[in-house]
């Protein structure tokens, strides 16, 4: 890194940027600090740690803006073995998270249109379209995305990511590392499949080291693995606290608080954040505070959130005393925590990254949902049939039928898209939710 680059980074990120973010956090803390300032009649104010979480995420994107000045940048898929990259000091960007930010900020359709104008079909994933649109136009709500020096696609969430990252590889003309994780159709992955993943991880090292310009330090890899495991365990504990009635947070809160576990896994700050979050959640439990003021019914959410209507859905359900207390999506970033073994990084990464819920069969997801219904004392399930996410959505029709039959809970299939609001009909959703609420009474 040049001296000018280093100075530019220090000035923009550590002096001006961080000061600005601290002030912004203070302002938000004042705004959400007391019930008098909170507008919702049905929902409890967000956790007081929320502004801190928001600052952490904002700092990540601030650093991202200037990352090309002083670090190598890797763009990775959300299920990628990020520990390797962190240990090699890559600055890691998650295009999926960026797309979700665009969705929450309600600019995803405008940005996706740039990709559609360039010929990308509306039938491909709306996350991918959002990021292609951003790549082609430079439009983004986070200021600026750093160019990647390396791409890493792991197929454990879908095959779409490989198609998506091949487009990125051609556009940016940088190496693309593929970690191919064979789909697990049955209870266990065959051992040769796990060894295949392990071998790919090991074979990726020379390319990673070449781009990083440094050698992999195994001690650092173990340390990152340890932090990754701790953060995932804490995140899981935060979610598991929702077995209490009333639930201290909702799945909608989890959706907004999950960014660090996805994009800052392996950082000490993420561990600190979730430790503090757990403490506050425990305080809420001790004081009998529920996220929904008058919690009467508890539901499970399946699939990605509808990013552009989180608040609307939370309010709509909250008005009827319904709390969505668990989600298969947020659960995915915690349930494998115990599989991470910092002392056997490659072996454990191979197993951990082969077993995400999205890389397992439709029967496994049904079993997970049944377990969650039991553990969280749930009264029903909303399955978001997400037009953009086929691997998550295929199987939902049978899963819904079996949940109704085997668990005697009502289950609703809600048609929408996680990022493209053109595939979402508010009137239709409201009608279906209203009918579902009636069934729950």
């Amino acid at each position, binding site marked *: 890194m040049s001296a000018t680059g280093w100075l530019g980074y220090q000035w923009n990120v550590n002096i001006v940027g961080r000061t600005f973010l601290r002030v912004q956090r203070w302002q938000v803390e004042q705004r959400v600090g007391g019930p008098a300032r909170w507008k919702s009649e049905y929902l409890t104010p967000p956790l007081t740690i929320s502004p801190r979480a928001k600052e952490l995420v904002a700092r990540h994107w601030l650093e991202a803006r200037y990352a090309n000045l002083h670090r190598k940048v890797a763009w990775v898929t959300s299920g990628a073995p990020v520990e390797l990259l962190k240990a090699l000091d890559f600055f890691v960007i998650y295009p999926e998270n960026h797309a979700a930010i665009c969705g929450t900020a309600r600019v995803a359709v405008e940005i996706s249109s740039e990709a559609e104008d*360039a*010929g*990308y*079909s509306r*039938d*491909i*994933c709306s996350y*991918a379209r959002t990021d292609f649109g951003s790549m082609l136009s430079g439009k983004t709500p986070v200021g600026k995305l750093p160019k990647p020096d390396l791409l890493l696609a792991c*197929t454990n969430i*879908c*095959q*779409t990511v*490989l*198609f*998506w990252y*091949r*487009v990125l*590889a*051609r556009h940016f003309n940088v190496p*693309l590392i*593929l970690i*191919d994780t*064979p*789909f697990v*159709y*049955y209870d266990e992955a*065959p051992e*040769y*499949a796990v060894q*295949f993943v392990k*071998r*790919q991880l090991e*074979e990726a090292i020379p390319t990673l080291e070449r781009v990083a310009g440094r050698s992999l330090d195994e001690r650092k890899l173990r340390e990152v693995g340890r932090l990754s495991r701790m953060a995932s365990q804490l995140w899981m504990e935060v979610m598991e606290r929702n077995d209490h009635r009333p639930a201290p947070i909702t799945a909608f809160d989890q959706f907004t608080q999950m960014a660090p576990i996805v994009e800052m896994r392996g950082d000490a700050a993420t561990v600190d954040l979730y430790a503090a979050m757990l403490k506050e959640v425990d305080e809420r439990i001790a004081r009998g505070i529920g996220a929904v003021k008058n919690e009467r019914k508890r539901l499970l959410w399946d699939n990605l959130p509808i990013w552009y209507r989180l608040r609307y859905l939370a309010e709509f359900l909250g008005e009827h005393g319904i709390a969505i207390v668990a989600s298969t999506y947020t659960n995915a970033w915690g349930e494998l925590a115990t599989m991470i073994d910092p002392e056997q990084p490659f072996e454990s990464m191979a197993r951990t990254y082969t077993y995400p819920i999205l890389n397992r*069969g*439709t*029967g496994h997801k*049904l079993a997970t949902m049944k377990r969650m219904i039991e553990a969280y004392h749930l009264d029903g399930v909303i399955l978001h*049939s997400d*037009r953009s996410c*086929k*691997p998550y*959505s*295929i*199987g*939902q*029709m*049978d899963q819904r039928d*079996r949940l109704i039959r085997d668990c005697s809970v009502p289950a609703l299939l809600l*048609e929408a898209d996680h990022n493209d609001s053109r595939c979402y009909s508010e009137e239709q959703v409201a009608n279906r939710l209203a009918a579902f609420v009636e069934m729950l009474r």
Partner: protein
Amino acid sequence: MLSGIPHRTETIRAYKDRGGLVAAVLPIHYPRALLRAFDILPVEVWGPPKVEASYGAAHLQPYVCSIVRNALSFLQTGGLDGVDVIVVPHACDSLQGLGSILIDFIRPRQPVIPLYLPRGRRESDTAFFADEFRSMYRRLEEVTHCSPTNSELMESIRREEATDKLLAQLHQRSSCLALTQMEFYRLVRAREYLTAETFSELAQVALSQTIEAPKNGTPILLSGIVPEPMSVFESIAEMGGLVVADDLACCGRRLYPPGESEDAFYHMAESILHAPPDPTRGTPIQERRDYLLRLIAASGARGVAFYDVKFCEPELYDLPDLRIELQEAGIPSVGIEVDLNDPLSHQALTRIEAFLEMIA
């Protein structure tokens, strides 16, 4: 003119009558020789078109492609009642989901064997794919109670490779064969269900009947998954076009080269992973472009028609970049989207016609 291509139903019946078993195989890549070594005839299921799709719609959302929805409908309406095993290769998220719901929820009478396709061409991919075939071998042992030896497997492989060689010759010499393009593709696609022996006989007959005069028509290359409805070839011919080469998943992308290894499983893996570029096998876009340009140069095609099934993600992601790169190389292209349950629309025909006029 080629006559006497046996029909799919009679082929299945004849094979079963002489004691063999039949496997329904979904798209795209699978080890034919392995199935035949167990005396199982692979019969491919690309949809099929125009089935009662509502049966599939009870399990699959409307944004799943018609190949996958139709395959499920076909199964549920008894279309696969006569088969003994169902093989579901992993080509995309939709086929992955179909395989999974068949195993977990629908549970057809026949055993369902999924097959994961690695997305690279590294040594580790080949080794893994060979292991997948070994696993498939064990499943087939359970189904058939047979255990073919390595030499029996190699014999089956050699038979299929000899047929694949003839298939490649058909493609290379398509312009001088005495077949209309419809007849040519009917013959080529008969490889989806005929035994290697029967197909080889037909291919040799076709290769022996050549014409001197060049075929008329504006030459184009057809890219995509499956040319359904097949009447598209007649329509192209009527509009003055001629398909001189293809990059279709069911045809040109499966011109498998022979493997090299002495180990039968590794040999089959090498063969499939070194087939022509295919997005479902993770081929980089640049490699696909280079391959298309080579095909265009060799065949004299003046343009490319991308003929895609709606919702087919593997095709849709590459399309904008491929079209730009072809344009830069002076090759015009057109994108046509179809659904297996619909006839070829007037809109699609008009686009093809306008495209042919443009490049004529």
